């Protein structure tokens, strides 16, 4: 059990190495092997869902071995609720991406699957690593395979898009690397230990000045990946020109790297700076939400539209996160999963028609619901999920985010809500243009409906969308301790109040909808014994010492005041 | 310290000044009359028979270079000889090593045909 995470992590890489020994011409064997490896990867990661103990605030399945002893870098893996869910998302989307490529990729098949599997390892590693250097290694490891996926198997403008993707991401991440190094040396000057241990960094109290610079450095790395408003320009190009599986992975998993980075590193390591930068982040998020949605509304290219919807949705995720309260952050994480599911599915859906017609022009389509009824049904479901229709997953995430943001600032919430409305507009407009009306393009008259393999790629996503929409509690429960840990660092006032308030077992939407204003937010989740789970208790259980309340917090009466005071 | 260099400075100034003065002064007073003989290059009183830029065999250069190399090495032997009474056996061995290296080079040049006059 000790090497469970390593097993999940290196299985795709082993598969890639295995593929290297398969003769090039043997396309079908290569496809089978890749699918089996990816499927096995998903199956292997399923126990993570069950074995993960939501009550234990410490990192679980920890593996630790010296890696570069002279500089204190370790091979240090471990997961909490946040990374567990993202790892499961990654293995699922990875296997779906592999499965969806069966007929779409016909040339240089071997390299394609090798790159996809290497990419998978890179993404999993980034989610698992608790050593900052190791994290960075995996973070950069993702770039090269993705570059090739876009550059070799992409569409018309692929070279440009590939290099743009690469350089943008790289420029951000190298600055982040400097931030990591600065943190590393500061940590040494304080503790006398050379280490890249993230859990150790979570306990550091950095001077405000340094925090600011580090936040900016991390911000550049993560914000480009998310992507946040001024840094988003690589995304439409990369998405549009990537092959279907590439877009799916990019949207469903790689964008989550950015948000994961904020949650795992920026917020807990740099709490004061995170609070101080809330206004900047919120403004960028709001611009991103509205701008992304408006641009999506104007798109003529199906895939580009979905790409811009990603910009808008991810801005929403970031906004929820920077409400800096438990509900907002929980919603932000849930919405990340939702975005992975729905946007991943939307890209797959574009891929299906692209494979048949080799065009993504929306005007080329129309009336597809008559020709491809099953396709139209799946598309409808995913559109609804993306819009945030109740009973589907998008609703839960958006509701939690809006609630969190509302508590923090009502005006922000108004802007965020406008994003939801605009989201409905561009998605329904897209649906109308492509699915309804007459089949006026003769080329569309005899399109084949979803085949069994294609349907198999959508089935798990549909199931998940409905599951999260109807019964999100298992997901929320797994996030409790992670969110608590982040909140304890970045907004400790919630935990101070938790001492006096009653605890809430799980922040279900019903409960939140019932609680007026921010009342619910004051309550902390329950620990295993039914008492409120405070970070102090958490600290006793884990190696993480209780965080020191920040200087800015006094007796804060409301979250709004807290957010104001932090500024 | 600096004052020790004053004589040198004076010398430099005087020398330069004399040269400049001579050049300027003569150019002012001399008559300008040229003829064919005056413009010819002076070569030991004999009229040049052919153009000076003639082509030599490349072998000249090769031999000349080899000569220069081995000739210059000899220069090292003079100071060595002067203090040989202090260096004694050590010095002898050192010089043998030095000459041995030269001999290897010489041998190489020889074997490669650098000394053959084709």
């Amino acid at each position: 059990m000790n090497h469970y995470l390593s097993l999940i992590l290196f299985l795709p890489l082993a598969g890639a190495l295995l593929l290297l020994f398969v003769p090039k011409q043997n396309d079908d064997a290569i496809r089978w092997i890749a699918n089996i490896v990816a499927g096995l990867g998903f199956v292997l990661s399923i126990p993570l869902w069950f074995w993960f103990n939501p009550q234990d605030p410490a990192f679980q399945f920890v593996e630790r071995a010296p890696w570069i002893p002279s500089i204190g870098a370790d091979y240090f893996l471990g997961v909490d609720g946040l990374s567990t869910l993202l790892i499961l998302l990654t293995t699922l989307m990875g296997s779906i991406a592999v499965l969806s490529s069966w007929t779409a990729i016909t040339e240089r098949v071997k390299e394609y699957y090798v790159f996809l599997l290497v990419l998978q390892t890179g993404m999993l590693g980034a989610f698992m690593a608790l050593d900052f250097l190791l994290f960075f290694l995996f973070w950069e490891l993702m770039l090269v395979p993705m570059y090739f996926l876009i550059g070799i198997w992409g569409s018309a403008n692929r070279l440009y898009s590939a290099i743009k993707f690469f350089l943008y991401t790289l420029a951000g991440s190298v600055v982040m690397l400097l931030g990591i190094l600065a943190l590393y040396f500061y940590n040494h000057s304080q503790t006398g230990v050379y280490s890249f241990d993230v859990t150790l960094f979570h306990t550091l109290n950095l001077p405000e000045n340094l925090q600011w610079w580090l936040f900016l450095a991390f911000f550049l790395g993560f914000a480009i990946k998310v992507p946040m408003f001024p840094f988003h320009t690589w995304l439409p190009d990369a998405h549009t020109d990537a092959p279907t599986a590439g877009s799916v992975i990019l949207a469903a998993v790689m964008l989550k790297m950015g948000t994961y980075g904020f949650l795992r590193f920026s917020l807990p390591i740099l709490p004061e700076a995170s609070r101080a930068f809330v206004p900047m982040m919120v403004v960028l998020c709001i611009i991103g939400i509205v701008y992304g949605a408006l641009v999506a509304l104007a798109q003529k290219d199906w895939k580009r539209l979905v790409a811009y919807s990603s910009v808008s949705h991810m801005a929403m995720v970031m906004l929820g996160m920077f409400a800096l309260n438990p509900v907002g952050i929980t919603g932000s994480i849930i919405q990340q999963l939702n975005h992975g599911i729905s946007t991943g599915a939307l890209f797959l859906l574009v891929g299906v028609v692209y494979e048949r017609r080799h065009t993504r022009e929306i005007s080329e389509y129309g009336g597809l619901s008559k020709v491809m009824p099953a396709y139209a049904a799946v598309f409808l479901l995913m559109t609804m999920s993306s819009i945030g229709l109740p009973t589907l997953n998008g609703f839960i995430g958006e509701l939690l985010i809006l609630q969190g943001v509302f508590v923090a600032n009502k005006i922000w919430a108004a802007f965020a809500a406008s994003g939801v409305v605009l989201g409905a507009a561009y998605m329904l407009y897209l649906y109308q243009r492509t699915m309804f009306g007459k089949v006026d393009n003769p080329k569309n008259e005899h399109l084949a409906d979803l085949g069994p393999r294609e349907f198999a790629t959508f089935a798990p996503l549909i199931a998940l969308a409905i599951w999260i929409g109807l019964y999100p509690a298992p997901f929320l429960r797994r996030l409790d301790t992670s969110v608590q840990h982040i909140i304890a660092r970045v907004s400790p006032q919630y935990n101070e109040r938790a001492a006096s308030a009653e605890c809430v077992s799980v922040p279900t939407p019903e409960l939140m909808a019932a609680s007026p204003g921010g009342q619910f937010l004051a309550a902390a989740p329950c620990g295993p014994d039914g008492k409120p789970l405070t970070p102090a208790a958490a600290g006793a259980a884990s190696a993480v010492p209780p965080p020191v309340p920040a200087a800015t917090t006094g007796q804060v009466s409301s979250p709004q005041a807290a957010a104001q005071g932090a500024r | 310290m600096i004052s020790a260099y004053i004589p040198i400075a004076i010398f430099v100034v005087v020398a330069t000044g004399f040269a400049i003065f001579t050049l300027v002064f003569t150019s002012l007073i001399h008559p300008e009359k040229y003829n064919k003989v005056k413009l010819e290059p002076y070569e030991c009183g004999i009229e040049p028979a052919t153009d000076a830029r003639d082509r030599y065999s490349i072998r000249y250069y090769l031999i000349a270079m080899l000569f220069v190399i081995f000739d210059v090495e000899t220069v090292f032997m003079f100071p060595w000889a002067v203090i040989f009474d202090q260096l004694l056996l050590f010095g002898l061995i050192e010089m043998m090593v030095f000459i041995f290296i030269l001999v290897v080079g010489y041998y190489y040049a020889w074997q490669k045909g650098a000394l053959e006059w084709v």
Partner: protein
Amino acid sequence: MPPGISLSDFYYILPEIVLTAGALVLLVVDARLPRGSRALTWVTMAVLLATAVSLVPFRNTDVEVSQGLLAVDQFALFFKVVFLVAAAMTVLMSERYLQVEGASFGEYYFLILCSTLGMMIMAGSIDLISAFVGLETMAVSFYILAGFIKPNQRSNEAAVKYFLLGAFSLGILLYGMSILYGVSGTTNLRTMATVFVGHERNPLLVLAVILVVAGMEFKIAAVPFHMWAPDVYEGAPTPVTAFLSVGSKAASFAMLLRIFVEGLPSMDADWRLLFEMLAIVTMTVGNVAALTQSNLKRMLAYSSIAHAGYLLIGVVAGTPRGISAMLIYLLIYSFMQLGAFAVIVMMRRKDVVGDELKDLSGLYHRQPFAAFAMLVFMLSLGGIPPTAGFMGKLWLFGAAIDAGYVWLAVIGVLNSAVSLYYYLRIVVFMYLKKETIGSEPTLSPALTLTLGVAVAATLVLGVYPGLLFDLAEASARTLGASGVTAAIR
């Protein structure tokens, strides 16, 4: 035996003696063997191996030889290993190239060995005289090597340019050195360091520092003394270019560190400022100029200029960590740079010169291994994990941050992001283009070995660099460990 010389001195310079003797043996063997015999390659390799073996007894020594002409310490040892590795890889990739060009082996290998000897002396010298002798030994060998392909005009042009500018820079360097001698009354760097304490404001010393910096900058091809590099790198025979860009650069950095860290630690405010500015300019100019190149060798020349800039960051930091980062980077750089040049050597066929970017087109379909190797080298040069180049850059920039030069590190990383653009262009041609030029490029066993070693080293050091880090750390600590430098640190 005259005073000041003992037999043990000869014991400590055993590696240099072995190398010299080996070079002489090579000459004799070459004279006896028929022209074009490939046995010479293996004789050369044997000489290099013997030299490497003779380094073994000195892995823990730290002594001064011949009244402080040379130091035999771990710092020198580290560099000597780098030189020997670089020389061995150069020799391996040279055979094919010389065959295609129809040049003779004997003098070529002899000159490679001579330049290696010069480098080894440079790395060990703690005296201006011996450092200069080493530098000259190396430089003269390279002047000839650069013009080794006699019928090739470009090669001739490279040799002349390199010779003229090299001689010019040596003049400047010597001028600086003579001032240092004039002020201190000694040529020994360690003695000099103690003499100069308290004379930081002496204008003559400042002038000397500037001159020596300028002279050394020529040798490491740093902006604004880099103009010779692209022309020489392009024109010189490809393996020579490889060796020039690795060995000569590493040796010059070793000498530079000896002079400034051991000899002029009290002047560090001056030379740090100079190197800081030069590092910024060098990185930026090198990378920006490389962006537009279409000739591979020119591109790598500019990239190597940029790398000199990165390495200067370590000098600026000046801490043991900075110096160890330089050592790490130089070793890693040797592997990736030599590997990249080995691929260009492979591209040289009878019908294709193979040093244009478009010649690489479709390489992946013709030589997958070479293309993969080149991919690894390009990513490593650009500093992308999990290649060794990343670890090297990580530690260089880390040293800069640790020493408080955050802006230098910021400019460094932004530059390495820019550099990825042109490294990726090479990848684009190899992997994403299909049309091919000329006959099929083939790998000889020696080339395969070179590429294999370089790829393996680049990847292994990228994933597991622990041992190298330890070694470099220990080596860097021996530099100026005693005396003034240590006191100032």
